[in-house]
């Protein structure tokens, strides 16, 4: 009998100015350089603006602002991570997250310890945390984000 292999999860580390996020690679459509960002009047504070991507117009979100942290300053290394539409949403509803620099791949094998609550920002948009080496990563709660993004 073959030994059971532990599941390996391909993830992406999204560097933010505060704590990095860890997300499944499969939810990401593309990582792009920030292009011309158009502000959305009367948009939520966390809605950074919209960009043209492929043939679509994609809203770009600041996760830091969403969780109530200071609005980040974005430099030349900043990227926009384009996410596939959330479950149940229409096929054109891609959205972007502004990150501080190029995302890095990380592979989880189940051996990484969970981060304690005290090590994570207190926010409904953070589902859990995980430790990789001496770094703590926050795992965003995509369901909570979905409820906020699409309240109706």
């Amino acid at each position: 009998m073959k030994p059971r292999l532990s599941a390996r999860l391909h993830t992406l580390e999204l560097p933010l100015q505060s704590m990095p996020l860890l997300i499944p690679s499969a939810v990401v459509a593309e990582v792009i350089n920030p292009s011309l960002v158009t502000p959305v009047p009367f948009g939520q504070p966390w809605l950074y603006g919209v960009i043209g991507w492929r043939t679509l117009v994609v809203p770009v979100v600041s996760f830091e602002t969403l969780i109530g942290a200071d609005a980040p300053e974005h430099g030349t290394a900043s990227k926009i991570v384009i996410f596939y539409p959330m479950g149940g949403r229409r096929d054109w509803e891609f959205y972007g997250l502004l990150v501080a620099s190029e995302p890095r791949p990380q592979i989880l094998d189940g051996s990484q310890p969970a981060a304690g609550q005290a090590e994570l920002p207190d926010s409904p948009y953070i589902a859990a945390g995980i430790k990789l080496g001496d770094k703590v990563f926050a795992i965003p709660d995509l369901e909570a984000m979905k409820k906020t993004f699409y309240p109706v």
Partner: protein
Amino acid sequence: MADLNQYLRLRLGEAIYLLPSTTTFTIEQRDNLVTNKAPEGNVAAWRAMRTERIPAYCLDALLKPVRRQNWQRAVFLDAKPQAVGLIADEVELLPRTETQVVPFVPLGLPLTRNGHLFSGAWLSGKHVALVLDPKVLITYLQSLGV
């Protein structure tokens, strides 16, 4: 009067917005309007009618009311109980065949109970112009008072 296959391209400061021609509108030159000389208030000018005067508002690129003098024309949107005007730096009719509007809905709660202020977007190269929802725009303008 525009036909139904057109968008009105409005430049407000540095921003471009589109307005579908599904709403009835009239473009008036400044010379035909009565400017508000009082420094206070949101109304920039009025269009004098026989029995009423219709306010026109000057908005900045983020659609906040501003008072400034260097404008030339206003677009008046037909509405109940009263029409309302929006001052624009440039106004141009675009044929829909030249204007590929894609679906777009802002994330988060809408501005008004009538919904979001934007109902689509026009992607021209890398430039995005948001498409105003006429009903919500009218509600917003009518809320600006005097």
